[in-house]
């Protein structure tokens, strides 16, 4: 008899993989089926019909869409993401380093943003509707009202130009020490943290508030327990699941924020890579990047759901 939790987790992961597959179809359809002649874009206006036909045959554009999709998917599953149209470079190779850079940046931002969001959420609930809560609400309202790229330039303006504290271009290369790397990415990390913090903090506040207003917290207070004990023994175990859920969902926001921040600070990551090649209409690169981003996003959502399942006492201890 399989424990229901294991069954649910397995179901969720399977659903996630299915979703990823469907997303790959969507991405493929989005780039290949929509109007716009790839061969024309590559060779330009002056291409001869013969060269166009040759290129189309070479790129496999004459085969029916379904076949092209499975060819692409098959290659992806073997680690071959294709070659860039603009310079023939192997995409998987070019992406490898950049993906590492992007994950490093996102990780640093997450490590700062998550404890900060939870901490601020706790403070906001502790001083509910009083000035600390209202102040935090106003500041987060401001940060979510300003798009990431503008936060980036404000940061550059203040901290890089006026006060010369941090560099305005986040250049990282092999051979840099960890300290040097962290210094270089200080501003982009700051901007990412601010972007994600606003959303995350509002949601952690709501999740914690929900728990604190439950009847069993009142029971604990009426037992004469110390406030710390009430929070640690009664609120915390029930708050883990909703808070982790919130954190995971917001890390998904991070995925999007990373793209813009990399462009602002000219950081050699996946986001920069994707944006460059969208303007160049380099379809294989766009497909591959889209797929990777979608996979990360779906992956984080799966983790969020799995944590919710694992943390639910009704599912862990069925009747």
């Amino acid at each position, binding site marked *: 008899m399989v424990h229901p939790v294991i069954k649910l987790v397995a179901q969720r992961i399977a659903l996630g993989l299915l979703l990823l597959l469907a997303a790959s179809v969507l991405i493929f359809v989005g780039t290949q089926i929509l109007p716009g002649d790839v061969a024309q874009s590559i060779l330009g206006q002056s291409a001869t019909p013969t060269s166009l036909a040759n290129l189309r045959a070479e790129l496999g554009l004459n085969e029916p869409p379904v076949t092209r999709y499975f060819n692409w998917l098959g290659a992806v599953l073997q680690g071959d993401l294709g070659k860039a149209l603009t310079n023939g470079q192997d995409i998987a190779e070019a992406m490898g380093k950049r993906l590492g850079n992007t994950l490093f940046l996102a990780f640093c931002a997450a490590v700062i943003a998550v404890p900060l969001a939870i901490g601020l959420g706790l403070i906001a609930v502790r001083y509910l509707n009083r000035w600390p809560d209202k102040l935090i609400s106003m500041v987060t309202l401001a940060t979510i009202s300003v798009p990431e790229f503008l936060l980036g330039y404000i940061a550059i303006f203040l901290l890089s130009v006026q006060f010369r504290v941090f560099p305005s271009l986040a250049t990282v290369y092999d051979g840099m020490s960890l300290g040097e790397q962290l210094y270089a990415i200080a501003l982009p990390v700051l901007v990412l943290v601010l972007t994600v913090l606003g959303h995350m903090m509002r949601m952690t506040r709501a999740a914690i508030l929900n728990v604190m207003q*439950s*009847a*069993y917290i*009142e*029971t*604990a*207070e*009426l*037992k*004469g*327990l*110390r406030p710390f*004990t009430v929070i640690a*023994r*009664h609120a915390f*175990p*029930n708050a883990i699941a909703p808070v982790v859920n919130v954190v995971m969902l917001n890390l998904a926001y991070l995925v999007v924020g990373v793209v813009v921040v990399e462009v602002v600070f000219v950081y050699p990551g996946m986001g920069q890579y994707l944006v460059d090649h969208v303007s160049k209409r380099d379809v294989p690169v766009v497909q591959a990047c889209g797929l990777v981003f979608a996979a990360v996003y779906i992956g984080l959502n799966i983790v969020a759901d799995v944590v919710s399942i694992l943390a639910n*006492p*009704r599912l862990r*201890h069925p*009747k």
Partner: protein
Amino acid sequence: MAESLLKITGLKIEATAYPPGEPPRDITLVEGVSLTLEKGKVLGLIGESGAGKSTIGLSSMAYGRGGVRISGGSVVLNGRDILNAGPGGLRAIRGREVTYVAQSAAAAFNPARQLMEQVIETSLFHGLMTRPEAEARAVLLFRKLGLPDPETIGTRYPHQVSGGQLQRVMTAMALCPKPDLVVFDEPTTALDVTTQIEVLAAIKEAIVDTGVAALYITHDLAVVAQVADHIMVLRGGKMVEYGTTRQIIKAPAQPYTQALVSVRSIDHEEKRDAPAVLSVSHITARYRGTNFDVLKNVTVDLPAGQTLAVVGESGSGKSTLARVITGLLPASKGQITFAGRALLPALAQRTKDDLRELQMIYQMADVAMNPRQTVGTIIGRPLEFYFGLRGDAKRKRVQDLLDQIEMGKGYIDRYPAELSGGQKQRVCIARSLAAKPKLIICDEVTSALDPLVADGILKLLLALQAQERVAYLFITHDLATVRAIADRIAVMYQGEVVRYGTKSDVLAPPFDDYTDLLLSSVPEMELGWLEQVIASRKMEAAGH
């Protein structure tokens, strides 16, 4: 003279309301309440909702729920003034000298921790016993309170245990640290009738056994009469009457108390037989996608202009029967005949007349009316829809209906949010009357109302029945209501009709097992009734 355990004088409790779009205002919840409680005695606090009973109960621990504050008077517990005790002082008495049993045990337990841990938590925290001692005491209390598997039930989680059992575990949790005073806040209100009486008996025995003092809060006078030595009647935050249980029950002095005591003593003579307006014949039904029947072979008749009361506890199928009759859940077998013609199983198949002559009134009047429509629109729509009435003619008829339900002028343009609970239900009644129906299904229409208000609604329904010759299918779980208004009764249990007939037949012995259990579980407003029931059940259990 022994010093009293709890002495409350001139208590005043206030709260701030923040109505949207208006400045905040202070409202007084409780004013001028004084009471004295001796060691080992039980004081019942009784009143309708909003009377302030829970608020007063919690003030004995100097606690105000949700921004409620104690702004005047004094609360002296064991000789100490606790209103000025400070957070440290309050933590010392809560969970130790005073404990609390909440109304909804399911919400009051931490879903993520085992029951035993929560039960012994205060005893360990206040340093009253060692862990083995506390656990032993907990198991002892579980056994006393009649819980199954007392040795192991502590290892369970709250969701693995039934509602009635959870309520008893909470009582054990309150009694474990050997407190001086336990505040019981409507502990049995959320339970089924048959479960209620077991829990009530368990609580009473525990109180007597441990010699603890108690504040017992409830809105049911019959229940409080079984457990309390003294009773305080509250209304609108003020004290109406205060005396011994015997005096309050036998010789209430105040008119309000008298009304509470005599509630549901409406005398209704059973009508004689008449041709049936509704015939339900061998109805079997199940929900799509499930593999068991929720109604099994149900057969009942309802004569025109009379009332058929369908009684049962939760899960008995009584509300499902209403859904089948209205066509929301088509039956898989059986026939329904209404006003002489066959009623097609699904709602979509029925004619406009079918729909018009069969009306329904719901339990919660708040959600039964569209909050964005005025009373006039709500009552007027059936007039428009079925009879094509418009303009002045419609308005006049709406006012006539409002008069008929004993709400006078000035309500046509009001919104539901501006009405009281009783008024809302009256408007729902008027809405169903507007269609000139032959049958009205009343689905627990008085269950969510206070006893006095419910009384008013029942009297209104009876008057309307006499005027309009409309039949009622009255669904309820409350036997007192059934006695008051039924001509025929059907008792349902797990989807089947276990007993059916005229009122006098059904309520006279010999009974089947379930009806027997049901009838004997309804608290009577008689002193010593509970002891009788406990004793007779023990005898039965011993005899079998």
